């Protein structure tokens, strides 16, 4: 459904952050994009959703298309209209609005009142926790609840594709599990495609169909999630499991580190 073809992105016209990224999200699939910090994962998401422009970033080459329509030249508003909903990093709830108002903002573009009402109910079914707080100012929700709210808000736009940026960031292990379970359910029950950017490789690959590994603005490895999970390098560098299959202890990390780099 979504095709990113060989895009290059630079900021302020000088700093190149993506060097020809290509990836694909199939209809109804979950795709995980994993990799080191500063590797360009978030930038990739922003390039897709058009938010890059609001930060003086620029797509300098390649193209992005959604269902064979090019979207790389559009503004974020138009892209959102086409059915891509982004959940930004850092639980960006609209703090002073109530939970329900937050969700209504998500449905801003939609004209079908009945559909919106249904979807509101649906979101509350997925996230029963936030139903209790519907009239509460969202800034006072806990981290996990806020993450649920922003995912719910993105869902209210009735998207075809959702982009999740680090949904587990700064969340307790329990909350991470809960959110990932719901995300998987959303994917299965509503057929929404998902592109998830994650540091928590284990969680992301746990529900993904396919995965891409990104380093320094390049895709260095990709494959079905099952396969990636078993990849030695992924295991060692992203999941902290040594080749013997035992998790490494942080205390044992040496002052000099063995670094393996693809492509460099």
């Amino acid at each position, binding site marked *: 459904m979504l095709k990113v073809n060989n895009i290059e992105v630079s900021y302020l016209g000088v700093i190149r952050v993506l060097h020809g990224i290509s990836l694909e999200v199939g209809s109804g699939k979950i795709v995980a994009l994993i990799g080191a910090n500063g590797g360009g994962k978030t930038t990739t998401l922003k390039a897709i959703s058009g*938010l890059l422009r609001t930060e003086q970033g620029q797509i300098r080459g390649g193209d992005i298309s959604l269902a064979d329509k090019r979207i790389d030249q559009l503004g974020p*508003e138009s892209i959102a209209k086409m059915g891509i909903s982004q959940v930004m990093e850092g639980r960006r709830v*609209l*703090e002073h609005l109530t939970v329900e*108002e937050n969700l209504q903002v998500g449905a801003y573009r939609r004209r079908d009142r009945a559909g919106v009402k249904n979807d509101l109910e649906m979101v509350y079914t997925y996230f029963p926790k936030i139903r209790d707080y519907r009239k509460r100012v969202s800034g006072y929700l806990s981290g996990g609840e806020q993450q649920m709210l922003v995912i719910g808000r993105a869902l209210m736009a009735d998207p075809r594709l959702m982009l999740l940026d680090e949904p587990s960031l700064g969340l307790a292990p329990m909350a991470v599990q809960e959110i990932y379970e719901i995300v998987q359910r959303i994917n299965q029950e509503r057929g929404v495609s998902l592109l998830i950017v994650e540091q928590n490789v284990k969680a992301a690959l746990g529900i993904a169909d396919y995965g891409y590994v990104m380093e320094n603005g390049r895709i260095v490895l990709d494959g079905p999630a099952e396969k990636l999970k078993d990849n030695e390098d992924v295991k060692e560098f992203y999941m902290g499991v040594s080749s013997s299959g035992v998790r490494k202890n942080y205390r044992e990390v040496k002052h000099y580190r063995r670094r393996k780099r693809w492509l460099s």
Partner: protein
Amino acid sequence: MTFFFQLFVTGLALGMMYALIAIGFVIIFKCSQAFNIAQGQIVMLGAYFGYTFLMPLRLPVWIAIIASIGVGVVMGLVIERLALRPLLGQPALAIVMMTIALAGVMDGIAIMGWGGNYVTYHDVLPELTLKLGAVSVPPSSLLGLIVSVIVVAILMFIFRYTKIGLAMRATAEDEQVTRSLGIKATMVYALVWVIACVVGVVGGVLLGGVSGVSPPLSEIGLKALAVVILGGLDSIGGAILAGVMLGILENLAAGYLDPLMPSGGGLAGVFPFIIMLAVLILKPHGLFGLKRIERV
């Protein structure tokens, strides 16, 4: 006692005027976090346009009002597009400086365009007289009161119950998020400036009818800023309450304290600022402002 009530009523009317101008600030601040110091200048230019439509052009009052609203719309669009949009994403200080510079430009325009002359249009606006016993309400202020109430009611409705109002409140919180949800932030900003300018221009036309117009009229903007600060930067209700409060207090101070001052007083000019400073020391977010939800 009559003296007290006279002061009170006059203060109330003046306060509504402050509130009307303050609302212009609040709208802009609420939605785009821009602190518009030029609101007083918008009012002043509005008054000059009101004069031009009513006196040299001799338009009927209602057409003049509509024409003024048109001027407000254009003014809002021009300011937003040329001055504020290039600054999207810049720090708050840059935006404050921009509006200060805009104030300079607008003062300059008033002087270039109308020679900075003092002009009046006294008997053109409809006269409403109201007498409560021995106390009389200034007609122009009464008109201001009515217009303020209408404007506030409309704005409240928009904010509370309409979709565009929701979009405006959402944009106020987080521009990027709202854009990613398909709300055109630039449209919201333009709309916000248009509303603020229209409110300002209408206020200016009314105010000019009371007192005549000259460039220093814009100083009322600074007083209205004190009102905004007192009411809390993002609260329309707060602006109204604070406006009325300051108007009354200012008048009472001028009436009762001025004669006690060593040099005749003139307290009316500074009283709002003194109160504002005192309140700020005790309540740093104003009387009715949202306390930002802070998580360290």
